[in-house]
């Protein structure tokens, strides 16, 4: 596959390491009353869609950026690639 890196342009997916669902960015608040349940959901409950999926890829043999790649798991079509850091910020993640 070719991943169109937002900074570097098209790069071979062999340069990347795959991690999985990009919802891993949404780490729950450890201070919440429901933290135990929230972390359980976060850690173990994932969708496994046949179709579009936002997932995390690490450009290990490249610029060491984590990316959020929107990929169709049926066709491998990739519709969007963003820097995970930008995604995390846009979702309101802070310190």
């Amino acid at each position, binding site marked *: 596959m070719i991943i169109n890196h937002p900074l570097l342009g098209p790069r071979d997916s062999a340069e990347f390491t795959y991690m999985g669902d990009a919802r891993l960015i949404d780490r729950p608040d450890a201070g919440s009353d429901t933290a135990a349940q929230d972390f359980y959901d976060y*850690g173990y409950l994932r969708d496994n869609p046949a179709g579009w999926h936002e997932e995390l890829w690490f450009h290990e043999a490249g610029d060491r950026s984590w990316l959020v790649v929107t990929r169709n798991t049926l066709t491998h079509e990739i519709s969007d690639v963003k820097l995970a850091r930008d995604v995390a910020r846009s979702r309101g993640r802070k*310190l």
Partner: protein
Amino acid sequence: MTQKNRLAGGQINRAKTHKFMFDGKHYTGHAGDTLASALLANGVRLMGRSFKYHRPRGPLTAGSEEPNALVELRGGARQEPNTRATTAELYDGLLARSQNRIGSLRFDLLAVNDRLSNFLTAGFYYKTFMWPAAFWEKVYEPIIRHAAGLGSLSLKDDPDTYDKGFLHCDLLIIGAGPAGLAAALTAGRAGLDVILADEDFRMGGRLNSETHSLGDQSGADWAAATVEELASLPNVRLMARTTIIGAFDHGIYGAVERVSDHMHTPDAGKPRQILWRIYTKRTILAAGAIERPVAFENNDRPGIMLGSALRTYANRYGVAVDRRVAIFTNNDDGHRTAADLVAKGVKIAAVVDVREDAPRSLDYEVLHGEIKDTKGRLGLTFAEVRLADGTMRTLECGALGLSGGWNPNVHLTCHQRGRPTWNETLAAFVPGGMLPAGMTVAGAANGDMSTAAALRGGAKAAQNAMDLKGKLPSLPQAEDAPVNLKPFWYVEGCNRAWLDQQNDVTVKDVKLSHQEGYRSVEHLKRYTTLGMATDQGKTSNMGGLAIMAELAGKAIPEVGTTIFRPPYTPTAIGVFGGRHRGKDFHPTRLTPSHTWAEEQGAVFVEVGNWLRAQWFPRTGETTWRESVDREVLATRTSVGVCDVTTLGKIDVQGTDAAAFLNKVYCNGFAKLPVGRVRYGLMLREDGIVMDDGTAARLAEDHFVVTTTTANALPVYRHMEFVRQCLFPDMDVQLISTTEAWAQYAVAGPNSRKVLEQIVDRDISNDAFPFMACANVTVCGGLRARLFRISFSGELAFEIAVPMAYGDALIRRIVEAGAAFDITPYGTEALGVMRMEKGHAAGNELNGTTTAANLGMGRMVSTAKDSIGAILSRREGLNRADDLRQVGIKPVNPRDPVPAGAHLMNESGVIDAAHDQGYVTSACYSPNLGHAIALGFLKDGANRMGERMRLVSPLTGVNVDVEITSPHFIDPDGERLRA
């Protein structure tokens, strides 16, 4: 022998004669021949025996789709089985043998299988060899394997090398026939980066095999002139002898270039083949079409081949397969073959056409009817014709050309999600469904069967794919005949009529599988093995589908097709390995003391790709244990030195560096003073231990973190995830510095005395206490880092210098330590000392261990949020009887305590249900004089002193042991604080 069937003409170089040998006999051919064309020129039609029935076989085709003419090529270690004689390029000294025979090719002893054919039908093996079950492996399978099969391996190491490479282009064109050449001209002249690849050694495709002209040139001449122009364009890369084996996602193609297969031996240093990974924006598939045969009784005799193959042998190679040839056709193409052969002076016995309205000819007889059967034990002698009026006629002929129509070569269009669609006019499948991204199909591969349509289609495809403006290149006038075909798959009433000649599947087998209830085309394929041979059924699948459709009363497109998968043609495993084999299979990493350690005679072990000294044998030592015991005792009594460069090192800087470490480690780092080191335990988010190490605070905003050797990369990746994805607004920067610093552990009561001679500052206990760290200089000014940390449990330091000085520093340390008999130690002694000290390592941090299991539950801070803290508190991970790390020693000091053995109560049942725990690490402790072990035991913390049994039913171990603290030596840590 003379080349008795050689005709005039063709694109061979008659000035260059090659000698070659087949089955021990000498022959000659010419440059430009294939092995098959040269053998046919010499009158040899019989080239192999079939897979199952050992039927005599000759080539069916003149290309890579060949099912029959498979031979063992070359000799000795270079012997290669199952190569197709129809594509093997002739060279001087070529050596080939027929395969799958016992005895000679002419008198194969296993030809008896053919007589037993009534029993050897589809599913024969499944049905017959079911009982007794134990017989399968020992009796049946070896016999069947011996009898059925293809070529044999040399079982020697391949002496040749294979290479890999990477190419980029705007447009990849697959196939250099009329469509591919026209596409290449269009895109090449427009200045685009073009790769034109063709599996053949001569570009031109069918143009080299046909007689019709392009403009005022022959097709072959036009192809040669076009190739010459393309070769002159710097932006066009011509790749002959290159097969595109697979179409992968997003414009990535696999290609195998046969660099040296046409040579006796590869030139020095040169690879035999290269596996190219081609990255392209757009692709034009111009792979042409493959003619299909017709099934009738005994249609597999040597001499019976595709009509297009007869033309190729005659026109391209100047070879008549026989001087008297019959044709069996359902379309106009058969008449083209007849006309070409007549022009070459070959006698046409008759053209048998199934169509009532077959064209007539003055040059040869046309019969309306079908071929019923054939004769000839080792090669065709007669063909029996059943005329339309029912009368029979016998034709004397040594070759029979079959023209059943053409199948567009859709193979590569299927490699992603493409599913071919049915074309009624061609009675064939054409590319359809979702093609690989960026691919368009042109020419015969797209169902455009005439030369003119191929030229036009190729040029247009290039123009459209690359969005080119302006006029198409002017293309020569060419034949533009329509396809005129009557679908015809098999002759009524035939049984032993071959569909798949490579896997010996007949019409009868397909009928039988239908009778037995196999309705899905995928089931038919697997039950009969139709299309499952190395040719993937390129010439056979359609016939099988058609018969299946007829039996099911369906149309062919309703039955569907099976799927072509990579590789396009059989590919040598060696080329996938490339240069990565033997000691180059993967790279190793050398420590800075490697050269020095080699000089000391060290024995090395591979750890996470690093080659580390395992122990340093000395003269007189006969076992590894002697060396390791000595290294351990010397370190504990005086001083030892060990290269610890391999530990992962990550530089963590920024104003939020401490806050960041507070997140990734479960214990606290915010209050660690500058100049101090702290042990850190890193959890996964699910609460399981990921890794451990130390973090040294060199400045308020600067830490150096260590990881275990094996986890350096995963930990770095994880830390980048935490930084970029979870806490994107922390001011923290990470970079790996594992290989930037050479680091040595100097351990033992005399370690300070040694390092005092090296380090340019006061390292007394007051000035540099346990867990201190500092930037220092050594040897009078070289920048270095010093850490007072200890894995061995002794007074110890780790000292780091820039990598280039690592070799010099180890020599200096050993020099300074000479007075104390400093002893280099390897990973084994390191392991013994950490077990004596009770330190967990990889065996304990095995991906199932919690901090509580390690007895470090209290390290997981509740005062802050850290990765894994929440889930580490789950009830299931915190039961009263959870495993705890313990020490284990034998009651009888002579007993072993092997790793992997399980702990059982002192009395009672020994089985899995009563398992109490297990040993993770074990060694002999030279300090204690008996074996020791670390392990996990249920409620272990409360069972100190308990007597248990350590068992391993598999290896017969049953030892009485005592549970102890894991800290076998200096439990209070007095030594390391000294």
